[in-house]
């Protein structure tokens, strides 16, 4: 893949911000969130750390948005180009999932599509995964291989900028004055850094090993007590689905404004009791444990069956956010343990 080098991060960020709105990570307590880039700010942008605690979906599919006005036709507004800096591989893989849902040919969500098209992605290597990160178990890596316009890797004396798309290439070509050739040893240094972080993830998740593919573990654990037992500590705060970058359920509702009627789209959660209820009162998932099971079955089985892609990317946001202490890793481990005890498992490799 084509790459260039830049000695100063500020040069890059200022060049991007000159062309479009730019969002960068900022530390807030122990977490990171995204804020609008301010070129005059004195503190440097920190981007080598853990992914932000907020999901990237909020740039494409806001918490609440106007979906239609009645009876006048209403189309998505023109979106100005915008850039998000510092996204991690897990973030990019969450976009792959969302794209499957919102950009499918038959029913393309033009609100999502308009933002997705105008989004400029500058991803970055992950130097400091958190305790909750388990992307390596979900076939992810602490650095991006695709899905970005540009990717930045910090090495000694500067930053390697990898080009991942035509949009990225155009940007580089437009600013020849700020980039140089990649120094001879820089790629080797970057790869060494990457390997170290990968090793760190492997070590911290060493006990998260499964005897069968996760889909099969869940399918054979459908009648397990684990769901009800784990759900006992759930306080139905719905934080898990809010922060999950692949959860995309929404609630479509009607509202009456002063001089028009509107439909709104708002994030919803399958952990909410009335989520699947119908007007007559029937509710396939009245029981909290059933809702927890559905959420995980959707992530590891249903989405995979439908789109050929697993809907958990191992970012660990739900683990960090869960007020009830529910840990998706622990559930998977327990289900795996049950299979092992039942003697169904193949010999562990």
């Amino acid at each position, binding site marked *: 893949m084509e790459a260039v080098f830049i000695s100063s991060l500020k040069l890059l960020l200022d060049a991007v911000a000159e062309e479009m709105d730019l969002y960068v990570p900022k530390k807030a307590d122990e977490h990171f969130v995204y804020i609008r880039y301010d070129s005059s700010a004195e503190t440097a942008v920190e981007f080598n750390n853990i992914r932000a605690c907020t999901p990237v979906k909020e740039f494409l599919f806001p918490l609440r948005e106007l979906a239609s006005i*009645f009876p006048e036709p209403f*189309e*998505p507004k023109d979106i100005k180009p915008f850039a998000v800096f510092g996204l991690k591989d897990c973030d990019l893989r969450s976009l792959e999932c969302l794209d499957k849902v919102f950009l*499918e040919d038959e029913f393309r969500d033009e609100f999502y599509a308009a933002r997705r098209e105008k989004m400029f992605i500058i991803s970055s290597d992950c130097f400091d995964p958190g305790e909750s990160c388990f992307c390596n178990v979900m076939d992810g890596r602490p650095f991006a291989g695709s899905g970005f316009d540009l990717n930045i890797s910090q090495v000694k004396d500067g930053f390697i900028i990898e080009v991942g798309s035509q949009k990225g290439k155009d940007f580089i070509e437009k600013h020849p004055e700020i980039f140089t050739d990649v120094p001879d040893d820089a790629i080797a240094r970057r790869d060494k850094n990457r390997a170290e972080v990968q090793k760190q993830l492997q070590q911290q998740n060493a006990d998260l090993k499964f005897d069968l593919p996760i889909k099969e573990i869940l399918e054979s654990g459908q009648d397990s007590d684990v769901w009800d037992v784990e759900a006992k500590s759930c306080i139905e705060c719905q934080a898990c689905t809010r922060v999950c970058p692949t959860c*995309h*359920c*929404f609630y*479509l509702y009607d509202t009456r404004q002063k001089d028009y009627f509107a439909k709104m789209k708002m994030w919803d959660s399958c952990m909410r009791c009335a989520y699947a209820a119908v007007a007559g009162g029937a*509710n396939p998932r009245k029981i909290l444990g059933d809702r927890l099971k559905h959420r995980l079955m959707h992530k590891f089985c249903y989405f995979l*069956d439908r789109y050929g892609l697993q809907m958990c990317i191992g970012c660990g946001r739900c683990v960090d956010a869960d007020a009830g202490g529910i840990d998706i890793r622990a559930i998977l481990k327990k289900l795996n343990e049950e299979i092992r005890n039942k003697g169904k498992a193949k010999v562990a490799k």
Partner: protein
Amino acid sequence: MNQNLYQPIAGEITDIIDESPTIKSFIVVPEKEFAFKTGQFVELTLPGEGEAPFTPSSSPADTKKMEITIMKAGRVTALLHGCKKGQKVGIRGPYGNGYPIKDFVNKEVYIVGGGVGLAPIRSLFLTLVNRIKDFKSVVCRFGARTPEDFIYKKTLFGPWQKIDGVKIKLSVDKSDGKWTGNVGVVTTILNKDDVNIESAVAIVCGPPIMMKFATVKLLEFGFPAERIYLSMEKNMSCGIGKCGHCMIGKYYVCKDGPVFTYDQIKGYPNIWD
């Protein structure tokens, strides 16, 4: 082409028919021609109040207007029941797959329906009757709580029963004293020799509990799961396989259904709840 999936087209309620104490049919005229396949559904918006999914009960042959039969069951349906002629509504759709009529050709079509489940069945029935010679026969077994609760009484109790190639049997859970037909839930009028199972398809639509027991009975008769067609009612909200509320396993009822064979969904949890 940019097309907003969440934008309804305008329509107007031009007539309202009282069907039963809890059920009304609404004649809806969309502002432009509206084609649908029998068994597909629409999202009907009461502007500013809410939206709910309904399968039109009219024949798809009429693209100028549709009939939507609605039971008062929740907030939006209660508000719709309070509407008068002239009410403006929004329509999105049509959504879903509809009944696979071509798979019914040259077969006996065995239709089991209950309560307001007769609404989608009426549209199917009119479609089948329109080309009745393409099917071996249309055998209907319909149930309602009481005789008064039957919808489409005028046609159901008379003209429909006289159509060549159509056999209809009715049952009520509770008689009103004047009822001369069968008394009992609809499964009590299902018999193994109603149709030749080898060359028949079964269609079931009604309240979940009725669909469950009818399916069990059909399986007992020897109907293979892939020839039992179920109209599933779930919380279809967006209609386009995105919002997630109507999922049965990997399926979005709104997009992959609402008509499923029992074979497709039997492995998933809580399908009848």
